[in-house]
């Protein structure tokens, strides 16, 4: 490895990146837009679920209950309907996800027997939303039920404390607000870095083959390692810029709490960049066409990073053999790392395992790429 040649390649690469609006655009604009697109687009918190209400009693009591729904952050009342067919039609049209039906004898039953049923009709076509809506409905109704109980006890001259023997008080750590955004955005940074990083370097060797400049380059005494590191270094700098960009958006714009140290973040991000950049480079060496290499990079990075990295879909809940596959997905390690750094403030010691995996990955890909680069035409 000669420093002089390494530098010559790196300088040339910088000039070419600078003069090629396409790579610059991929490098700078794509992460920016994707951060916002995915940051806002992917939101697992359901709020303001549209519902229809069908109050068959129309009493003070039933209206009280519906006010509880109205007051809840989780529901938004789309329509008040006056018949079952109207309710069914509203669900069919997609105006609402659920219908709350209060029976005509609601307050009568409550007074007589102390319990009364409320009917919830859920649109099961989206079972996830239906489940969540069901949970929230239960919560609203039990809240109302509590209020009723309290007022009845009041009238009977007793206080609440006397009849509440036990209660579970849950406390969530690390993501106290249970905001899915806090959980998703750090992972998103990983997904975007994986995508953009591999895209950048996937063009670098294939472009030289396509333009014919490689034939001259391989006729010189330059070595495989000099070409590889000379080309990767400028992209690593670009990658740092991009990562800083994305991480700043995550911390400042989306206000994800950052509890770790910058040193840990820098170390692990650099490692991850080394993996993704060298994977793009490897593809570029193997597939001597720009379109082919960049599409392959998209397939290899985007899908696994989205689906198998644990960025949105928890790895614990995957079938065992899919879970085994995720160990091969390098993004998985960085997703784990970056979530832990952001939310738990984890340091290098706690993250040793995923860091070692990333190092092993980097070494493997770099060795493969160096060997795959042949100074021959066929």
């Amino acid at each position, binding site marked *: 490895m000669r420093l002089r040649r390494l530098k010559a390649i790196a300088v*040339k690469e910088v000039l*070419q990146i600078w003069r090629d609006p396409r790579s610059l655009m991929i490098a700078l604009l794509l992460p920016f837009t994707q951060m916002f697109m995915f940051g806002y687009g992917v939101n697992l918190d359901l709020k303001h679920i549209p519902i229809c209400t069908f109050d068959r009693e129309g009493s003070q009591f039933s209206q009280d209950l519906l006010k509880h729904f109205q007051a809840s952050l989780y529901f938004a009342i789309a329509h008040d309907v006056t018949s079952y067919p109207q309710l069914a039609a509203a669900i069919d049209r997609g105006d609402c996800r659920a219908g709350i039906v209060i029976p005509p004898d609601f307050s009568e039953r409550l007074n007589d027997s102390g319990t009364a049923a409320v009917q919830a009709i859920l649109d099961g076509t989206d079972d996830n939303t239906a489940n969540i809506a069901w949970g929230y409905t239960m919560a609203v109704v039990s809240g109302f039920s509590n209020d009723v109980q309290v007022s009845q006890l009041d009238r009977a001259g007793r206080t609440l404390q006397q009849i509440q023997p036990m209660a579970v008080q849950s406390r969530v750590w690390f993501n106290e607000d249970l905001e899915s955004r806090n959980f998703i955005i750090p992972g998103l940074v990983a997904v975007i870095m994986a995508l953009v990083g591999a895209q950048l370097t996937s063009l670098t060797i294939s472009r030289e083959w396509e333009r*014919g*400049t490689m034939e*001259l380059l391989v*006729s010189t*005494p*330059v070595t495989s390692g000099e070409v590889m590191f000379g080309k990767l270094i400028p992209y690593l700098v670009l990658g740092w810029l991009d990562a800083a960009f994305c991480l700043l958006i995550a911390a400042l714009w989306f206000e994800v709490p950052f509890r770790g140290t910058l040193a840990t973040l820098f170390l692990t991000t650099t490692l991850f960049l080394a993996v993704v950049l060298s994977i793009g480079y490897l593809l570029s060496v193997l597939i001597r066409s720009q379109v082919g290499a960049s599409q392959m990079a998209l397939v290899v990075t985007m899908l696994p990073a989205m689906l198998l990295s644990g960025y949105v879909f928890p790895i614990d809940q995957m079938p065992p053999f899919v879970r085994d596959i995720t160990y091969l997905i390098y993004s998985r390690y960085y997703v784990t790392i970056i979530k832990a750094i952001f939310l738990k403030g984890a340091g290098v010691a706690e993250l040793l395992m995923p860091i070692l995996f990333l190092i092993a990955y980097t070494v493997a890909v770099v060795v493969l790429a160096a060997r795959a680069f042949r100074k021959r035409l066929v």
Partner: protein
Amino acid sequence: MSGSDIADAQVVAEDLVKRFGVFVAVDHVSFRIGRGEVMGFLGPNGAGKSTIIRILCGLLRPSAGRVLVAGIDVVKDPERVREHIGYMSQKFSLYRDLTVEENLRFFGGIYRVPRAELAERMRFAIDMAGLGGREKALVATLAGGWQQRLALGCAVLHRPPILFLDEPTSGVEPTSRRRFWDLIHTLAADGVTVLVSTHYMDEAEYCHRAALINQGRIIAIGSPDALKHMALGGELLLLECAALGPTLAALRQAPGVIDASVFGNSLHVLVGDAERSLTELPAYLAEKALPPSRVERIHPSLEDVFVQLIAVDMAKRRQAA
């Protein structure tokens, strides 16, 4: 110089074969190039010229045979060979999105031209290519001839003793081509060994020796004059006279004459030795009362020569098959 007697051979190919699947691109080719020699590879497109050059540069592995460049076996140690050569590929292969200066600086770095020398070497390359004042121009904006001269400049920046130039004048206008050949000769005069391929047959005149390549084989190799002699089987005189018929008959009996034929208003006479016949023939004809009005030597174009040699080669192949 005729092949094997070259003592100081810088490039040696022995029984070189290159197959791509069933297609034989290079078919048992042998040649030697001496120090400071300009060797031309001529032949139609697809004859195998580029393939041979790429093997010499270590870009393709030969199927059989041996190649020595600067005394080093290319197959065994391509990297050491690359220290000694400069290469211009058939397809333009400098960076079009870099400027003249940036390209030179890049290759200066790749070849590790000593920093103290680099500025002077770059100046030399720029002057040689006639690119003074355009150092900051993007290569993409330069005309073809300038691009090719810059490519040559990049190839000689590190003072390689051996140069492989693959169709350097292809697509370049005639005046620029001429200038390019002057550059090649300047380099050769300094002791640089040059192998240059071209499909412009007339450019063989600029080479010390030329090899005519057809369908992967060298069908003729030698100096331009030797090649002409080989193709015609002699040297050619043009003779103008009053009475065509009797003169033709007389010439066919004349000593030293191989053949004679009518060519428009004059005669073409094929002789063994042009210099001798130039003095002997007028005297011979004057004796027969048929004094010619003009006798002069004519130089057939190499293009004619090659067309004939290729035709003969094709006929031989058909016979063999």
